């Protein structure tokens, strides 16, 4: 398999409730930004990561749609779905297509248009990432599922609501430096605890929002990167993916994301790196408790100690290992299919030194972790400044 590099990245202008832009508008805007950033004059293939354009805007066949609107017919185009990991899995598919030699220049884009339906319909659409017949039928919601994880983690390890709140505060602090962020403003720990309770113990400010947005990246073989692009290439050191049970109640341990742990082990091995070698991490903070458990599953903190990470400043921008410098899902927003690709965009920019006020000095190695549902799927990438 060939070495692969990211040579172009882009987002659409702003993430949030973007009434004027449609699903196809968002994707093509981000894709064109990535293509311009790469400076390529053609692509061989494209991927579209999107959880459920069908339930949100009643549109399927996104491969054809996006290739058409990008002016790229007849290149092959593939829709990838893995709930909230759709973007990350799409990126992995694009990576594999280049690594295998099947294509040279591949565009991967992720998009979700969530605000054309009511809040209720959006909640229903999102719940399709869980077990519809045996979890959702019973009345559980997504915040509810993560609340079950939080309660189990608090019961076993003594994690507190204040420790959860610090995760949201940290991510908002970073998001306030990100012009694309949906909620780019700071919040306080007490503000989180005082915000309306959604599912005990998760408050509304523990939960990532409903967002319209898109992100894209251009991949090519590392050998070609210097010829094609003026920007410093970022090498994909590892790409790993794993699944777990669809239902939370089928897990052996509900305080753990085994799909993250399995994918992380594979990724570290393939990259020849360990948790200590990482300079920046973008992970899937769909809820504050998710960041806490993922940090443990990535081996960045001892099992059960995830609650201390934001509280102690370990994962702050100036901390030992900055996590979610983009603002994370919480502050930047979570257009489901776009999230995994946006993580790649953030880490790529960090490794190129392009992150401005959010720059982690000397960042050379970064990790992205994207997961679907309550961890039913997980995809991890490790990137290195080439």
């Amino acid at each position, binding site marked *: 398999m060939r070495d692969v590099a990211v040579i172009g990245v882009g987002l659409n202008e702003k993430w949030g409730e973007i009434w004027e832009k449609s699903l196809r508008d968002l994707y093509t805007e981000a894709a064109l930004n990535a293509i311009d950033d790469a400076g390529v004059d053609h692509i061989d293939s494209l991927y579209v990561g999107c959880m459920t354009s069908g339930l949100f805007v009643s549109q399927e066949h996104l491969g054809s749609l996006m290739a058409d609107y990008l002016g790229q017919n007849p290149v092959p185009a593939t829709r990838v779905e893995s709930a909230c990991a759709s973007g990350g899995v799409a990126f992995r598919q694009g990576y594999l297509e280049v690594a295998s030699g099947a294509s040279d220049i591949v565009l991967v884009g992720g998009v979700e248009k969530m605000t054309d339906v009511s809040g209720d319909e959006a909640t229903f659409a999102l719940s399709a990432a869980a077990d519809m017949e045996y979890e959702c039928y*019973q009345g559980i919601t997504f915040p509810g599922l993560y609340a*079950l994880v939080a309660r189990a983690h608090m019961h076993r390890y003594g994690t507190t609501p204040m420790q959860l709140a610090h995760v949201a505060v940290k991510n908002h602090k970073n998001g306030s430096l990100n012009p694309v962020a949906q909620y780019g403003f700071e919040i306080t720990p007490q503000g989180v605890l005082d915000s309306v309770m959604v599912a005990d113990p998760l408050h509304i400010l523990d939960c990532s929002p409903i967002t319209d947005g898109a992100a894209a990246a251009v991949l090519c073989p590392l050998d070609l990167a210097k010829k094609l692009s003026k920007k410093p290439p970022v090498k994909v050191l590892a790409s790993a993916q794993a699944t777990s049970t669809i239902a939370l109640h089928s897990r052996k341990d509900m305080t753990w994301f085994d799909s993250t742990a399995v994918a992380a082990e594979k990724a570290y091995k393939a990259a020849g790196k360990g948790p200590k070698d990482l300079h920046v991490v973008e992970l899937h903070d769909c809820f504050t408790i998710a960041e806490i458990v993922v940090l443990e599953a990535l081996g960045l903190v001892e099992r059960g100690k995830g609650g201390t990470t934001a509280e102690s400043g370990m994962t702050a921008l100036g901390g030992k290992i900055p996590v979610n410098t983009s603002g994370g899902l919480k502050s930047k927003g979570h257009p489901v299919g776009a999230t995994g690709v946006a993580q790649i965009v953030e880490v790529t920019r960090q490794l190129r030194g392009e992150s401005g006020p959010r720059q982690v000095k000397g960042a050379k190695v970064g990790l992205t972790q994207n997961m679907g549902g309550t961890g039913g799927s997980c995809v991890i990438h490790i990137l290195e400044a080439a």
Partner: protein
Amino acid sequence: MANPAKYWREIPQRYRLEAAKCQSCGEIFFPPRLICSRCKSRKFEKIKLSDQGKILTYTVIRTGPSQFADQTPYAVGVVEMDGGGMITSQIADCEFDQLAVGQRVRVEFRRLQKQGPAGILCYGYKCVPA
């Protein structure tokens, strides 16, 4: 919801807790499935889950989906049934501040939700403190 088959085919599970026990390794699956995920055997024994169990984790849903608007706020938990089998279930008829990990519960046949403009009533299991 025009076609009730989606609801009807889950009735053995929702009304009677019918499950499957792997004949090779004894792992219990609710709902039943075609292949054991532990040992890959395809042979199962038809069983029913016990109607008694204990709470492993719980939450109180305060912002619920519209089908449950008339029940909000309500408690939901993961319950481990005696003898095996894990379910996600509402915990009804309880004081929220008395919910606890390890609490004993038993299953009751209850109305879960109404569907569609005709308001087809959908039933299933809920747990109540034992």
